[in-house]
Structures are given as structure tokens and as C-alpha cells.
């Protein structure tokens, strides 16, 4: 039963990791931008949920609907006004730009919200469900389902909508997409906006699970990075696969070698993937 509990914990955690990473993967895959502001977007989303719940008693489930358009707009404008100006420059330039933007946003959050840790506690609490002695907390279960829904929606958007197909086209071959009449700058901004919206929604869901502070943003960013390398860049299902793999390694490693070694194991796995399968579990060669 203990083994079943560890497995269930890992699957749920894997979906949370996927939720954290999916927007990051989209931006990296489509724009070839390592978006270092992603972790701070997640934290900002968590503060939004915290603020709406504590001041207006708006449940986090409704906050997702507020966060998605708000963060899309923020991401869209950021890309349109700033990142698009350096998008064709070497990767280091965009990396430095998003690093700088992250410093600004993170320090602004410390200034306005303070560095104190806060917690969104629902009253009454959602509790847990137990099946054959295997306990699953309801908030994590909801976040898991939401992660799957978001992943599914993004997949449908990319496959079956005009904008989605344009995003995929830009990702596959930027120059050919331009020749086909795709407005690449606009597509970049939409993709970045989608990435930001996904980060904001992830933040709202994470507010229910993790303590909230601007200092946690690097933790989210680190996980998103590892999940993307493991799962494959720009691949929607890759983020899910990478998240599950990472959580399984951490969960099983923690049980057998102690929790202190869980992070070390995940980074060993990352190095192995970088050497043997740089395109990740579900990524395609050429997009690593």
C-alpha cells in the first residue's frame, strides 16, 4: 500500500510539474526564447488568487478565468513591445532581457507584497479522498485535472485552430511561414501571451498547494527547465511526460535514497538526457 501511495503521489506531482512547465515549453519551442520570467509569472498568478480570495472572496476556480486573459495581455504586450525587438539576436540577448525583466518583476513583488510567505487556505478546506488507504488531497487532484485540461486545450488549439497551426508552422520553419503569409511577429506575441496565460493559471492553482512568496519563483523556473529538457521542447504532451518522469524519479529516489538526494537524482537524469537524448522524451530532432 505504501508503494501505491508513493506512485499516486508521484503521478499527481508529475501533473503539477507539467502545469508549471507547459507555458515555458511553448515559448522555448516556438520562439527559441528561454523565458526566465516564467517563474515570476507563476508567483504573480498565485498572488492574484491570494488577493482575490482574501479581499473579494473569489474562489481560485474563478480566478483562473481572470488570470488567463490578464496574463495573456501582459505576455502579449511584453513580447510585442520588448522581446520582439531582439528576437532575431543571439539567444544570449533574449536570455539577458528576460533575466532583467525577471529581476524587475521579482523585486517589484518583494516591494509591493513583501518577502513574507503567505498561504491561501480555503475555508472549509477541501480535504482528501482515500481509496484503499491511498490518500489523495482534493486540491492536488483538482490541479491535476486542470493541468490535464489545460494541456488538452492547448493541444486542440495548436492542432485545430488557424492561429495554432500558424504557431506550429512558425515553430517548424520560420522562413517558410513568412513566405506563406504568416505574420510572424504577431504569432510570436500570441505564443508568448499563451505561455504567460498558462503560467498565470498555473500560479492560481499552485497558490492552493505551495506557500506564496516572490522567493519561490526560481524553484518553479528550475522545475520547468528540467521538465522541458526531459519531455521535449515545444511538445505539449512532452511537458506532461517530462513532469511525470521527474516526479517518479524524485518520489522513488526519495523513498530509497532519502529526500536529500531527490534533487540530485533529478539532475543526474537531466544530464543523462542531455547526453543521450537531447530532444527529450517526445521532442523531435532539430528542436532540442
Amino acid at each position, binding site marked *: 500500500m*505504501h508503494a501505491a*501511495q*508513493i506512485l499516486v*503521489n*508521484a503521478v499527481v*506531482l508529475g501533473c503539477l510539474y507539467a502545469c508549471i512547465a507547459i507555458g515555458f515549453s511553448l515559448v522555448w519551442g516556438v520562439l527559441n526564447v528561454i523565458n526566465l520570467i516564467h517563474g515570476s509569472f507563476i508567483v504573480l498568478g498565485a498572488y492574484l488568487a491570494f488577493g482575490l480570495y482574501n479581499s473579494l472572496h473569489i474562489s481560485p476556480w474563478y480566478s483562473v478565468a481572470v488570470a488567463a486573459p490578464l496574463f495573456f495581455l501582459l505576455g502579449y504586450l511584453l513580447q510585442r513591445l520588448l522581446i520582439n525587438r531582439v528576437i532575431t539576436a543571439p539567444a544570449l540577448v533574449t536570455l539577458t532581457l528576460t533575466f532583467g525583466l525577471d529581476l524587475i518583476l521579482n*523585486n517589484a513583488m*518583494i516591494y509591493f507584497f*513583501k*518577502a*513574507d*510567505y*503567505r*498561504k491561501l*487556505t480555503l*475555508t472549509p*478546506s477541501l480535504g*482528501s479522498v*482515500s481509496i484503499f488507504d491511498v*490518500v489523495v*488531497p482534493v*486540491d*492536488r487532484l483538482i490541479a491535476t485535472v486542470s493541468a490535464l485540461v489545460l494541456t488538452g486545450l492547448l493541444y486542440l488549439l495548436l492542432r485545430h485552430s488557424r492561429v495554432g497551426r500558424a504557431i506550429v508552422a512558425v515553430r517548424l520553419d520560420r522562413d517558410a511561414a513568412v513566405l506563406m503569409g504568416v505574420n510572424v511577429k504577431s504569432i510570436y506575441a500570441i505564443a508568448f501571451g499563451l505561455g504567460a496565460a498558462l503560467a498565470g493559471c498555473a500560479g492560481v492553482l499552485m497558490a492552493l*498547494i*505551495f*506557500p506564496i*512568496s516572490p*522567493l*519561490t519563483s*526560481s*524553484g518553479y523556473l*528550475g*522545475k520547468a527547465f528540467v521538465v522541458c529538457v526531459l519531455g521535449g521542447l515545444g511538445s505539449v504532451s512532452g511537458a506532461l511526460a517530462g513532469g511525470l518522469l521527474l*516526479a517518479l524519479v*524524485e*518520489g*522513488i529516489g*526519495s*523513498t530509497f535514497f*532519502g*529526500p*536529500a*538526494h*531527490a*534533487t*540530485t537524482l533529478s539532475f543526474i537524469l537531466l544530464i543523462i538526457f542531455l547526453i543521450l537524448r537531447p530532444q527529450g522524451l517526445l521532442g523531435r530532432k532539430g528542436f532540442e
Partner: protein
Amino acid sequence: MSKSWVARYVRLAVPLWAAVVAGGGLVSHASAEDVIRFGAPLPITGPLAPEAIKQQQGYDLWAEEANRSGGISVGGKKYKVEIVYVDYQSNTPRAVQATEQMITQGNVNFMFGAFGSGAAKAASTVSEKYKVPTLAATASSVQVYDQGYKYLFGTFTPNDTLTTPLTQIIKAKVPEVKKVAILARNDLFPLAIAQEMEKSAKANGFDLVYFEKYAIGTLDHSAALSQIKSLAPQWIFVTGYINDLLLVRKQMIDQEMKAPVVTMIAGPAYQEFIESGGPTAENITSASWWHPAARYEGKDIFGSTENFVKLFKAKYKSEPDYGQASAALCGALFQMAIEKAGSLDRDKVRDELAKLDVVTFFGPVRFGPNGQINSLDPPVFQIQGAKPVVLFPDAIKQGELKVGVN
């Protein structure tokens, strides 16, 4: 082309030069006044920023109080207090550099230690070299004080003074507790506390069924907690900082873990833990070096614990915790030592610090031969009715231990 570069250079250089000259003028003007400068290297940015803010609040409150009463009296003359802060960005080597810079270039008279045991130890090497008396507000590990240094003093008692009384209380009041599980953050202070707890538990005949460390920045504790749950310990002891402990507590609830006794160090000493934890914080036991519920009548500038708490609340609109109180105490102790020495001579002030034997708002203060305080009984407390209730020492006891954390 070259002309435009020259023009740009002039446009930039002239205001910069003017700013430097104006700034220099200000500095020389300030140093001309009768001021005692205290250096405070703090991790104002980076992961330790919340702790630095707390320490800064303590120093600032003392400086404000000291200046409000006219300043520090040195041989009949009053000197204003000025605290010079340098941000070492949560990076210990930078704390060492900052300390050296403040002593050699910043003209500070005395130093406050860097945050925590690790950085305070590293930076103390520099202040010892220059023979600058240093008061460390947040260094508890004995290893900081066993270097044979003469100019370093600290206001936190050794780590075992937190765990030993707690173990004895649990042994006496809840005899059915036999099995103990310890989960520790793999970091200097939290791990040292966990190791002291391990010693203390074994010495008192408890059965230690689990002792594991978790990495700094761990986002999920479910695997470790599932393992602890399967071992059914009656006492779960977790160390870490507020974010770790809030997360562990949340995940304990998620996994429906219950135990007669749950102890967490060092989060519950902070008001944010009680506010953020809500009902889940109930009956959690903890220990810290000071508590606002203490009632000491002191001879320091704050006069009494009650008065210190009142002043702190008025300035910051929140309850002080042990970090803020210890920082304010360090300032108050310097003030007493300087006034007794009647001089700003570093050696004379150092000797007065070593001789101190005084009751303060923080409790009785006396330093051992190694410079670490040895006169305090750190309080053990439990969250009851969303408030911390002191269980030990008897002199400030407010209630009895409640068993059962659900």
C-alpha cells in the same frame, strides 16, 4: 562622429562628477558630527531577504530609541547612532568582503554580525583581525564561538538549549510517546537543531524511527511524509524555515497524518506561520530564543519586554519575534557597554561587553568565556487558540501542553 562621442561623454561625466562632489560633501559633513557608526552586513536581497528585513527592523528600532533619548552618552557627551547597512546578497563570501570594507573604508566604530551562524562565523574572522567588537544577533551554533576569538559576542544560546527542555517536557507529560521521526532541512541551523534533537531523544530513551534530510528548495515532501506515516511515530519533529514548515504541515494534512506531538522549528515563532497555517497550526510545539510573552524588567534602553513589544508594534504594526528582538538587544547591549566604558575605545568597550551581567527586556544577559550568551532559558511554546502559549521556563509559563495534532 567623434564630436558626438565627446558631447555624450561630457553630458554623462559632468552630472556624475557633480553628484560625486555633492555626495562627498554630504559624507564629510555627516562624519564631522558626533556620531557612532555601527556596521551591519545583511542579506537584504536574495533568499535570506525576509530574515534580513527582520534584523534591520530590530536595529532600526534601537537606533530610533537611542537617538530619541539624545543618543549614547560617552563621558558626558551625547553621540547619535548611525547604522551603516551593506547588502551581501545572501552570499557568505560577500558578507566577509562587506565587513572588511565597512571596517577599513566605512569608518564604523563597532560591528553587528552577519545573519545566521555560517555567515557570522565567516565575517567574524575579519572583525577579529581588526579588533572590532562584534555582536552577532542570530548565530547559535557553538562552532561560531569556539574559535578562541576575543571580540565576538552572540545573543543566542547553543542549539541544545532549544531541544533539551522540549524533550524533557514531552517525556514527563506524554509518557505514551515512544517513537520519534525527524525530518530536517539540509542547511546549517535546521540540521544542527535536528542533530541536537536526535541526541536529546536518544538520551531520554525515545526510539528514533526516522531521521532524514531534505534539500533546500524542496517543492514536495509527499514521499518523505508517506514513509513517516507508515512508521506511525508519536512525535514528528521537523526543522526548516517558514516556507518549508508551511508546506510540510499542508502536506501532513493532505496525507491525513496525525500524531500526539508535532514540533516545528523555527517557523512557528513567526506570526506569519500562525496566520498562514490557520487552524492547522494548532497544538504545534516549538522553541525559540525569545518570545513576546516573556515578562522581564530590564536595565536597557527598552526597560521591559512589554515596553519593547509596545514600541515595536507602534512602529511596525506587527508582533516582534526572536530575530527582531535579538537585533534590538544587540544595539541595547552596545549602548550599555559604551556608556559604562565612557569611551569609544574598541578594547575598553570589548572588556565591558565581556563583563556584562544584566537583566534586559530579552532576559538576563551574561556572556561565557567563548563570547556566547549563557544566561538564558529559551522558551518552549505551543500554538493554542491561534496564539503562542509559553510552556517553559516556569518563570514565564502561560499554560499546559496540549496533546494531539490533527
